[in-house]
């Protein structure tokens, strides 16, 4: 039996090199971090002059924060460079870490989708590129999305799940970068994805606003005269709290709104009170002057950092659903499922066992 050295075997070195560059480590730094490996050995692995043992491979994977599997299989997606917003002001290292999370998360999900659906992967449908020539157009674009999702004027109970059902891939990046909330992009012009910060210090309503805002960047085409960020926020507000709902709840014209009214709306629609003041102004319920007065009061209350009313954080479940399906259909081994879930088999089995009550597990 030949090892076919020179084909796939060669690719291991290339994958080690790419992973090392992604985490911005020198050969020496990687050797130090992995322990008991020399810089010269790493150089040999990367240039395919030697193949590491599994023990070395495991240490290298751990040192670089990637799975062993990712070093043993070819990369299946070519992630374009993520376009972070200018306001996010990220350092190079932070950008690279976020790109690595996106690559890893997307690769896992798309691999699993390929296993489950084969070539018939369900696609994102329902809206064509929506032209936004003014802020009002952004409001209209949000209405188109609501129509495509058959949402009417009702609150969106779980925006993450709604978007996942629409085949937008949602990835959580476990990074604590204050200026980073989310980023979105199309992969191969077919697969939309949004990566949101998995940061417990951020609120659920902020996460929902980020998701809706990023959806705007995915589906809208902005005219040069339009400020993209402002329009995307208008879209996000209109998606979470449509004009009809805002006017029905608050009335057509008000001189002042009580914070308790906005708190009730916040909890119902999962959108912050501050954003609701914007909505009230944009929907013509309050004047611009009244809205400014409210924001000043909002700041005075000290709510900028800690707003009353808690909206729960949302978690994506598409991977979980696909894993359950793949396992039930015998499409993947338990070991592979654990690997795609980023945990050991034992942790994975325990986690699965915990999700059902004891008396149900046997059936």
């Amino acid at each position, binding site marked *: *039996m030949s*090892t*076919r*050295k020179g*084909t*796939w*075997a060669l*690719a*291991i070195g290339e994958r080690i090199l790419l992973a090392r560059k992604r985490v911005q480590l020198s050969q020496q730094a990687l050797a130090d971090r992995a322990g008991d490996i020399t810089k010269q050995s790493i150089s040999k692995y990367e240039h395919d002059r*030697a*193949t*590491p*043992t*599994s*023990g*070395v*491979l*495991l240490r290298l994977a751990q040192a670089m924060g990637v*799975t*062993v*599997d990712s070093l*043993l*299989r*070819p990369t299946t997606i070519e992630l374009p460079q993520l376009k972070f917003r200018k306001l996010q002001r990220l350092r190079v290292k932070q950008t690279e870490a976020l790109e690595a999370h996106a690559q890893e998360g997307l690769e896992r999900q798309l*691999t699993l989708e*390929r*296993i489950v659906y084969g070539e018939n992967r369900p696609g994102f449908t329902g809206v064509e590129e929506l032209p936004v020539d003014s802020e009002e157009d952004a409001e209209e674009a949000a209405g188109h999305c609501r129509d495509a999702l058959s949402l009417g004027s009702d609150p969106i109970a779980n925006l993450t799940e709604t978007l996942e059902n629409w085949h937008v891939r949602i990835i959580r990046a476990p990074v604590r970068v204050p200026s980073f909330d989310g980023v979105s992009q199309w992969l191969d012009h077919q697969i939309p994805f949004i990566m949101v910060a998995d940061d417990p210090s951020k609120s659920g309503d902020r996460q929902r606003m980020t998701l809706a805002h990023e959806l705007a960047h995915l589906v809208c085409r902005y005219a040069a005269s339009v400020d993209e960020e402002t329009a995307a926020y208008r879209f996000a507000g209109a998606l979470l709290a449509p004009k009809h709902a805002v006017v029905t709840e608050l009335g057509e014209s008000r001189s002042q709104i009580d914070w308790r009214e906005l708190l009730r709306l916040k909890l119902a629609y999962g959108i912050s009170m501050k954003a609701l003041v914007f909505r009230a102004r944009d929907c013509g319920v309050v004047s611009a002057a009244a809205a400014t007065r409210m924001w000043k009061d909002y700041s005075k209350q000290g709510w900028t950092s800690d707003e009353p009313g808690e909206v729960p954080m949302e978690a994506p479940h598409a991977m979980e659903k696909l894993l359950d399906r*793949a396992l039930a259909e015998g*499409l*993947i*081994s*338990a*070991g*592979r*499922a*654990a*690997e795609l879930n980023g945990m*050991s*088999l*034992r*942790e994975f*089995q325990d986690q699965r*066992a915990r999700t059902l009550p*004891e008396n149900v*597990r*046997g059936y």
Partner: protein
Amino acid sequence: MCVVIDSAVWFALGCGNLALKAVQLGRVICAVDYVVDEELLSAPKGSDLRVHGLRVEEVGPKGVAQVAVWGPDHPRLGAADLLSLALAWEHNWRLATHDSELEELAGMVGVPVLCVVDIMEMMARTSILTLADIAIFKRAMFVRKEPYSKRKLRDVERLLKNRNI
């Protein structure tokens, strides 16, 4: 000949608390997974536990290169599954698995395959398995819905009962 136990079979044995007993077989019993099981690492000295968590014993460069060859063609198998097979292939050992695709791949590269009950039979023959162990194993497998050959297990039970007579 030594046996490499793949992570799923190792886990199945662990369900019935048989993993530690399997170590006592005294041959090289190996399990490949990403996490070192502290309990197993503190297994009795002389138990000849060589591999667990890919840290104690390792698949060599030849085996790793082979996994990189198999991997793209077998997307439903995990790296741990393939490394278990590579270990057996590299050393001409046997592989304990109950995954049909891994069994097939093992057959293609000439690695003899055992199932979890075969390991139990080995344990029964060396008198380190009891009928009580089998009862616990069966209950655990029922609860976890793990696959195993009930017919083969009945044979193991018969073997133990005959020995007790």
